[in-house]
């Protein structure tokens, strides 16, 4: 017997009822009586001393009530705030600006228009300083020191390494085939539909601060506010209402949030701050900007041996990434991917430049995208070098399915996987052999066609408390369930959906565990006054952590429900079994009690010695991470005359373990593939030597529309996680992680006949045309 809306059912998303009607409530929909508006003066210079900020004219603009500068915050010790990575970030600058579009001052007014006029009237006198935009140049001895406030007089932030350097170098020396390549993953922007913002309301009477905020992690934000501002935590309420896309860009604490709180304190009114699009693109957290240099070795028969990776990570002017504390380069050491290397070594150096801070945002699961791209490119380059088909090469090297749980040479324990099956399925679906034959024929005719594979392994669900924390907060997550007397339920979580469909998927987990229709389960998130403590939603962690908490809390409910059912059926609890979504007497299916009957009894006829009511809470500390994987194959045709790359086929086989809602998973994969395609073909932010961002608008920063987007062909294999209560692994980022390498590999495959081994993304027609032109094609 199935329960409505249980596991594996493609029910429609509950939240869509309001979203498709335009009835969602986003931060900018929050309007409070007496609310004021905040707008921010931003620096035109990427690096400059602030000689003076003249606010006289701004204060005379009708409607302007206050102008806040760094020196005003300094008095309250709020000019700087700590970042999540033990660095510090300016809320408003006192002496210097460090990147173009940095916050310089803030204007509070009685309307959005007056605030903008006030911003235009603030006069700032700057003295420009030398600008550093290239992290490699930032490390040169004569580079200007960007952070004189630090003890270390260098633009080098930190060095991080893992693995056996000597052993890896030695093994590479002994390897019969070695290839080396430099791979650059450019700076990308998050580009969520909704920009960031907040409404800060510090009640002058109660002293309670309420902030409606675009945040993916409301509880962590509340704790940060308590620690930084010294406010008592019970007098801080963070509400994260509907969010129009986060992708990691809504994890950081942006200066605007803090300034809005100060503005509310200063004026005694609620204050709204909403970024415009350009501010969002130019000043907020970015993704990638990794300069990778990799070396990979194999035997001449094509058996992988060792991997050596050096990386320079451009963090902007401060390290404000949102990584787990112990991992300044995120989970980049998943870079051995789907392969059992004998030895590996990875090092990353974080560097300051005159660019905005950030560094992991954009659906990458703590640098997993960078790792997957690099390894899948390197494996392909090596296969081409040996002259082996890239599919055959992968099949020959994959971690075998019977080797799980598999301990990688860099220390991760992969929970489960069947990489051969996923690649085989993708090859069957796309007709791999046939495509290769076609490619051969086309080559003879002088036409350019390429086939690219990406067999990625992800690492998500951060994370186990023995190694994962942010600012010391362990990365568990939570679920609290209350069953009402009529057998309906409300469940609250420590995570926060930004469009992923939590209200539906969590309800489906609970429906399966409790025998209550998912229609009868309300899911709430995002209000720190009501939701249980949790670390929020990013890095594909919701299902692996809070989804697991849902199961565990539901099973606690079942434990108590068993006692009540036994009381009702006048049998011993041991005589009952949970079967077909109800408690029944073993061997007597007709003698059974549903959760609805049990819930009613919990409030009307609870057994002696058992408390009334039916509720439970679980704080789930995952025993391990989960390792979703997949194999993608892409076929491209290239126009020799224009350099244009056309994706003809793209087959994506994903394995995210047990699937809760197949339709939602497919939606996640379609969205992720489109983002992966965008990264591979379109997106890049560049800076000119003066530190001006080129790509600060959607005129210059290219995002795909339905017109450019290829048709995706999706399929799945299912390899449950052995340690997750329902075997689910998470899927939020898989496709973004896996897709770019498949596309890049396909393009390089097409161009390999000209000796091309690498082409940096985004693969624009201009880049391809230039290569073809240079090679005389």
């Amino acid at each position, binding site marked *: 017997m199935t329960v409505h809306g249980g596991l594996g059912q493609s029910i429609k998303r509950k939240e869509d009822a309001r979203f498709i009607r335009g009835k969602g409530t986003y931060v900018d929909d929050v309007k409070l009586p007496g609310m004021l508006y905040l707008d921010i003066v931003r620096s035109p210079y990427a690096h400059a001393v602030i000689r003076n900020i003249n606010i006289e004219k701004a204060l005379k603009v009708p409607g302007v009530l206050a102008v806040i500068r760094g020196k005003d915050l300094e008095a309250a010790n709020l000019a700087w705030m700590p970042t999540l990575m033990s660095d510090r970030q300016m809320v408003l600058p006192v002496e210097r600006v460090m990147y173009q579009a940095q916050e310089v001052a803030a204007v509070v007014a009685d309307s959005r228009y007056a605030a903008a006029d006030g911003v*235009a009237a603030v006069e700032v006198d700057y003295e420009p300083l030398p600008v550093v935009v290239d992290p490699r140049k930032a490390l040169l001895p004569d580079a200007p020191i960007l952070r004189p406030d630090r003890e270390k007089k260098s633009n080098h932030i930190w060095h991080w390494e893992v693995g056996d350097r000597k052993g890896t170098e030695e093994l590479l020396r002994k390897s019969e085939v070695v290839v080396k390549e430099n791979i650059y993953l450019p700076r990308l922007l998050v580009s969520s539909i909704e920009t960031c913002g907040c409404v800060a309301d510090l009640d002058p009477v109660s002293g309670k601060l309420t902030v409606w905020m675009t945040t993916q992690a409301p509880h962590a934000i509340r704790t940060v506010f308590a620690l930084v501002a010294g406010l008592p935590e019970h007098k801080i309420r963070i509400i994260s209402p509907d969010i129009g896309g986060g992708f990691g860009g809504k994890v950081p604490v942006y200066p605007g949030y803090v300034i809005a709180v100060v503005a509310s304190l200063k004026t005694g009114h609620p204050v709204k701050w909403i970024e415009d699009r350009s501010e969002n693109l130019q000043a907020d957290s970015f993704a990638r900007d990794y300069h990778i240099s990799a070396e990979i070795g194999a035997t001449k028969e094509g058996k992988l041996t060792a991997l050596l990776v050096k990386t320079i990570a451009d963090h902007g002017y401060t390290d404000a990434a949102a990584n787990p504390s112990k991992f300044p380069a995120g989970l980049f050491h998943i870079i051995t991917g789907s392969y059992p290397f004998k030895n590996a070594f990875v090092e990353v150096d974080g560097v300051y430049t005159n660019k905005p801070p950030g560094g992991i945002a954009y659906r990458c699961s703590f640098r997993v995208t960078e790792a997957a791209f690099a390894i899948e490119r390197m494996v392909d380059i090596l296969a081409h070098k040996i002259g082996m088909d890239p599919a055959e090469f992968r099949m020959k090297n994959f971690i075998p399915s019977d080797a799980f749980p598999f301990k990688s040479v860099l220390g991760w324990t992969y929970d489960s996987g069947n990489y051969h099956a996923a690649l085989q399925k993708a090859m069957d679906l796309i007709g791999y052999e046939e495509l290769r034959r076609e490619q051969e024929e086309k080559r003879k005719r002088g036409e350019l066609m390429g086939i690219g594979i990406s067999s990625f392994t992800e690492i998500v669900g951060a994370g186990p408390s023995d190694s994962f924390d942010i600012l010391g907060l362990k990365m568990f997550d939570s679920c609290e369930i209350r069953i009402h007397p009529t057998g309906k339920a409300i469940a609250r979580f420590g995570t926060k959906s930004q469009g992923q469909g939590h209200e539906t998927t969590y309800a489906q987990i609970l429906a399966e565990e409790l025998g209550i229709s998912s229609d009868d389960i309300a899911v709430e998130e995002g209000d720190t006054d009501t939701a249980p403590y949790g670390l929020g939603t990013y890095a594909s962690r919701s299902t692996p952590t809070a989804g697991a908490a849902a199961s565990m809390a539901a099973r606690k409910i079942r434990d108590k429900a068993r006692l009540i059912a036994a009381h009702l059926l006048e049998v011993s609890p041991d005589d009952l079994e949970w079967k077909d979504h109800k408690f029944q007497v073993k061997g007597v299916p007709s003698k059974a009690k549903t959760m609805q009957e049990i819930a009613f009894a919990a409030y009307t006829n609870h057994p002696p010695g058992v408390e009334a009511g039916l509720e439970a809470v679980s704080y789930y500390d995952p025993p391990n991470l989960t390792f979703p994987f997949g194999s993608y194959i892409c076929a491209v045709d290239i126009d020799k005359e224009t350099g244009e790359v056309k994706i003809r086929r793209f087959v994506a086989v994903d394995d995210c373990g047990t699937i809760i809602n197949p339709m939602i998973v497919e939606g996640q994969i379609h969205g992720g593939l489109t983002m992966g395609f965008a990264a591979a073909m379109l997106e890049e932010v560049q800076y000119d030597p003066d530190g001006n961002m080129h790509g*600060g608008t959607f005129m*210059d920063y290219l995002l795909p529309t339905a017109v450019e987007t290829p048709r995706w062909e999706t399929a799945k294999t299912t390899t449950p996680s052995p340690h997750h209560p329902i075997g689910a692994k998470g899927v939020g980022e898989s496709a973004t992680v896996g897709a770019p390498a498949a596309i890049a590999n396909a393009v390089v495959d097409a161009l390999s006949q000209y000796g091309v081994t690498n082409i940096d993304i985004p693969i624009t027609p201009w880049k391809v045309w230039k290569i073809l032109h240079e090679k005389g094609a």
Partner: protein
Amino acid sequence: MRQEGTFTVRASQEKVWSFFLDPVRLASAIADPHMIEIIDDNTFKGQIKTGVGPIRGTFNGSAQIVEREPPRRARIKAHGAGMGSAFDVDSTIEMSESGGLTTVKWAADVVLNGTIATMGARLLEGTIDRKTSEFFENVRKKLEPH
């Protein structure tokens, strides 16, 4: 960003020199709405409403004649800000006369920062080219006999 060019006008070098070195007359060749205020012989301040593509607004600036070798060569530096942007210009003009024609060789190093540089990058060169030729066309109209 370096801009340079040559402009030839049917007028004497003396006449062209005095036109170029008189801020009020020179500014009269600017098509965009503007105001100018003379501070001293070498310094003037001004305000101009202009823009690149969608970035339009008021810019405040000042300029200074830092070198002058009449009637041959001058160097002018300017700085301005507005609309979340800032600009710095270091320009030189060199004049010579031949057969009733005066040739003005001009060059300008332009540093742009902020919104204009970010959002207008693609449109910048075209706009500068257009505004420059418009400006010199106006200069010609004012200097050449009708």
